[in-house]
């Protein structure tokens, strides 16, 4: 069953500049890919995504960013929400961010877990799918 969740804090202008910092970067020009490794942090507006490895696919012709794949355990932090998952795929064209694998979404003192979550960054809504369960945080716990 799917659960629709409002994640207003994750609303984001997906055309805003994206800053990526890391220990190392390898760009393969022929493939149009940039592989960041080691403490990778991706920041766009108020969104901050951290992962050990992030592959960016860019279009050389249009000289712009197309999508990125963060793997190896991802944490995503917005002004109001935070999420964790094994992997995150961000498509800049469609403005969707898909988290997959042990997804944990925390908002205030409520938390939801699921197998995957699709966030529409344009309107700040998310759909969680696969064994969605809510986890009640002990109040005042965080």
């Amino acid at each position, binding site marked *: 069953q799917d659960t629709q969740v409002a994640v207003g804090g994750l609303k984001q202008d*997906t*055309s*805003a*500049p*994206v*800053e*990526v*910092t*890391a*220990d*190392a*970067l*390898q*760009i*393969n*020009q*022929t*493939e149009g890919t*940039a592989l*960041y490794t080691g403490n990778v942090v991706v920041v766009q507006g108020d969104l901050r995504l951290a992962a050990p490895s992030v592959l*960016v696919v*860019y*279009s*050389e012709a*249009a*000289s*712009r*960013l197309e999508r990125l794949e963060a793997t190896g355990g991802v944490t995503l932090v917005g002004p109001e929400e935070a999420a964790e998952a094994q992997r995150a795929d961000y498509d*800049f064209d469609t403005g969707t961010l898909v988290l997959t694998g042990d997804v944990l979404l925390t908002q205030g003192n409520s938390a939801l877990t699921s197998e995957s979550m699709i966030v529409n960054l344009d309107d700040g809504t998310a759909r969680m799918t696969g064994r969605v369960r809510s986890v009640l945080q002990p109040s005042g716990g965080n």
Partner: protein
Amino acid sequence: MARRDGAYSRVIAWLKILLPMIALALLSSLFLLSRKSEPDMRVPFSDALSETDLGQENVRRASYAGMTERGDMLTMTAGTVRAVGDGNFEAEGIAARMTLLDGGEVTLDARRALMRQAEDDMVLSGDVLFRNDAGFELRTDSLTASINRIAAQSGGPVTGTGPGAIIEAGRMEIEAVGKDDDLILRFSGGVRTVWQPE
């Protein structure tokens, strides 16, 4: 002279045909053989210069063209070039351009270059600028570039731009890898990039 019996004249007749044929075969194989031993096209910059007597004094507007092992064309021009001993040369105002097998182009400009014959490379320093047709433009203070294959490493930090991105890093390496020699740019020592999605 009486006419000998038929055998003799028949042998002569055959020889008149066979001998020119053999000569022809010999000639063409000679030609074929010589093509295989093409002189080695890859003459490192420093050898080219030291062979000429110009190698000793200052040379104005020197230029060099050669080919890397896999066949990329390398052309270089320099303002002044002078020999600095054991086959090494120092050049001012150097501009190198490499046309890759796949048609791609890389250019390297720098204020100074030290051509090292033993290492078959050149150490570029002073406003080193790396550019290529994929839209990368990267600046650093020093870069060591091999002459006979596509490989280079910066001596220190690099800043510049790529297709749709600003790039800053502690160090940079350039290399052509894989069977069709994709150009790989490796940045390390801390990397910061800003991409512009739109």
